[in-house]
């Protein structure tokens, strides 16, 4: 167990998921020592629990992590567990930038971990969308895009990251936790890291989302951050098994279809902003990818800046909506047995997320 006397190093500890993991670690009666590696030690710890040590470092600096040699030596002797959450989750980065952050950064932490004399466990966080454009059944053990390619540079770079992680699994005790898109807290709706999903909701709210590619019946897997944090904490803490990969997503039962998701969002707009009805915004049409691409191309040809920004925001993940897949969660479910954890149904908590977005005017929810 991650308990008193152990030291956990967390990368990305100030990010959406990392912060939740740190909170859970710190809330334990016998909390471990928690060290968060952060590029900006100054303000980064402001929202972290008391007692968490923030060290200024940078995965871009390589295995030295941008630490002083004294700090590095100290940490490599002390760290028992590593939770690698750091990633650049922007979908539309140039591939080389995405690789530098997500593959290069992982190289760095793997190399550091290899030098940790008391390392017991390492958890690497990834995305279920390492499957790229592949459709159908995606097993937790799979790491194969089936030659279908990727929707964006984030997916590709995380796929490459996982390849590197797997290569090192022979030497290091690593488990991989793949998440789908984090959209908010299922209990409060709070959004701690607005992402492309929220950007798309905002466009819909403002009547700037005419269409999305896909099929109405295609399932869209987004997930609650509290479930992911709880499940990852349990799996890492109580059921750690090196070499395993887990899907922390809504799965077939928790997710909704694209049409259901759009309907629920529109219904929530009506419920929480009754005056929105007067705007008479039409639900976006769900169209085939060719029609969507033609629309995007037309917007590009006109050079209309507002619509260009709007289409690009959707385009960053839109391709995934036309690649229906079912994520295998059997290994995760088996390992979660006894925890009482299961992914909440997206349609049950999505209205809370929408309300939080509206109340925060599409910014990060208040802590």
């Amino acid at each position, binding site marked *: 167990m991650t308990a008193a006397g152990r030291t956990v190093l967390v990368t990305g500890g100030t990010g959406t998921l990392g912060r939740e993991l740190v909170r859970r670690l710190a809330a334990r009666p016998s909390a471990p020592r928690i060290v968060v590696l952060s590029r900006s030690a100054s303000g980064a710890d402001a929202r972290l629990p008391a007692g968490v040590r923030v060290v200024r470092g940078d995965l871009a600096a390589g295995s030295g992590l941008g630490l002083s040699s004294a700090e590095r030596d100290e940490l490599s002797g002390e760290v028992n567990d590593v939770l690698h959450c750091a990633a650049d989750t922007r979908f539309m980065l140039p591939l080389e930038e995405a690789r530098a952050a997500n593959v290069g950064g992982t190289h760095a932490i793997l190399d550091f971990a290899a030098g940790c004399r008391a390392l017991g466990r390492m958890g690497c966080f990834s995305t279920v969308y390492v499957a790229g454009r592949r459709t159908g059944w995606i097993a937790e053990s799979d790491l194969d895009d089936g030659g279908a390619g990727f929707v964006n540079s984030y997916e590709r770079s995380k796929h490459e990251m996982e390849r590197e992680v797997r290569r090192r699994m022979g030497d290091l005790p690593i488990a991989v936790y793949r998440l789908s898109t984090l959209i908010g807290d299922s209990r409060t709706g709070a959004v701690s890291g607005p992402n492309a999903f929220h950007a798309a909701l905002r466009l819909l709210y403002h009547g700037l989302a005419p269409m999305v590619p896909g099929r109405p019946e295609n399932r869209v897997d987004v997930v609650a951050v509290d479930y992911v944090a709880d499940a990852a904490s349990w799996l890492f803490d109580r059921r750690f098994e090196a070499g395993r990969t887990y899907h922390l997503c809504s799965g077939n039962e928790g997710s909704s279809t694209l049409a259901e998701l759009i309907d629920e969002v529109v219904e929530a707009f009506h419920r929480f902003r009754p005056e929105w009805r007067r705007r008479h915004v039409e639900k976006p*049409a769900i*169209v085939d990818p060719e029609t969507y691409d033609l*629309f995007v191309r037309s917007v590009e040809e006109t050079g209309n800046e507002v619509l260009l920004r709007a289409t690009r925001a959707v385009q960053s993940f839109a391709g995934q909506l036309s690649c229906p897949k079912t994520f295998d969660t059997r290994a995760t479910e088996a390992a979660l047995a006894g925890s009482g954890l299961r992914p909440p149904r997206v349609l049950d908590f999505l209205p809370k997320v929408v309300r939080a977005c509206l109340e925060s005017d599409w910014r990060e929810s208040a802590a």
Partner: protein
Amino acid sequence: MDFPTIGIAGVTYRLPSIARTLDDLDARGALRSAPAVLAGFGFERAWVAESETALELAMGAVGDLLAETDADPDEIGVILYAGALTSSSTLATDSSSDGAALHLPDVMDLFKYPVSRIQAEFGLTRATAVGVDQQACASLFSAIRIGRDMLVAEPELRAVLCVAADRFPTHAPREMIYNVVSDAACAALLRKDWRGNRILACGHVTKGALWDASEMENEIIAAYFPTARTVIRETLERAGLSIDDIDWIVPHNVSLRSWEILLGLLDFPREKLFAENIARVGHTIASDNLLNLRDLLDSGRVREGERLLLFTFGYGLHWSCMVVER
């Protein structure tokens, strides 16, 4: 209850005498987008009324229609004059130096109506003359819908004359939301118990929230496609049909690209869209669909019993659809 069959017994249209190419329009500062972009969207030219008034174009179309349909002036019980532009609904503009913006040397000019002139000119003395406006490019659809409903509701009414005529100010831009705009007039005669071009259903949605065409252009573009699909689906449903039952789509002459996108939303084959007039004529405000209907019927490609879907869209903001059976 059995309703009488209302059909479109005839359609005529008039274009101005001058057509200008995209390059010509661009050289005159009348385009916002590059000619190549507009050409890529299917446009070639705009018809520009430099020597004709909107009323003259309308008179020409009505005269042709009455002659072609052998209409007895006493048969026509209602004239519905559809003006998309506010300036089209008054003759005050005729005395304006540039021919369209309101020009009021005398406030009495505001009471001089083109529909009255048409009634007088053609001796339609039994007709009630009515203006239909604030519907933009959907004006003629609204006139036809109102005319159809009047024919259904009033036993003694036998025929309704619908007229649309619009002319942009001489120096106004000729591009609106990436569409090339022409001047034109169109006239249609609705007859009771007329089986040809039988009107099966009409549908219309207004979204007043998007009334400000200049400030809400992006929202209007975004609203266009999904709302168009909704209105078309609802109209088909009203007719007891699905898109698979439609043999032709008769468009408004907005960009061909936008039609290709909308066809994708409707899952309708491109070859069944009568699109030739987008390049040849351009977007004639309210006259497009009926003008296209006339040309499509003249082409001989439509067989008896085939169903045609007409769809248009206008500022205000209006989406309008009609299903017709040949």
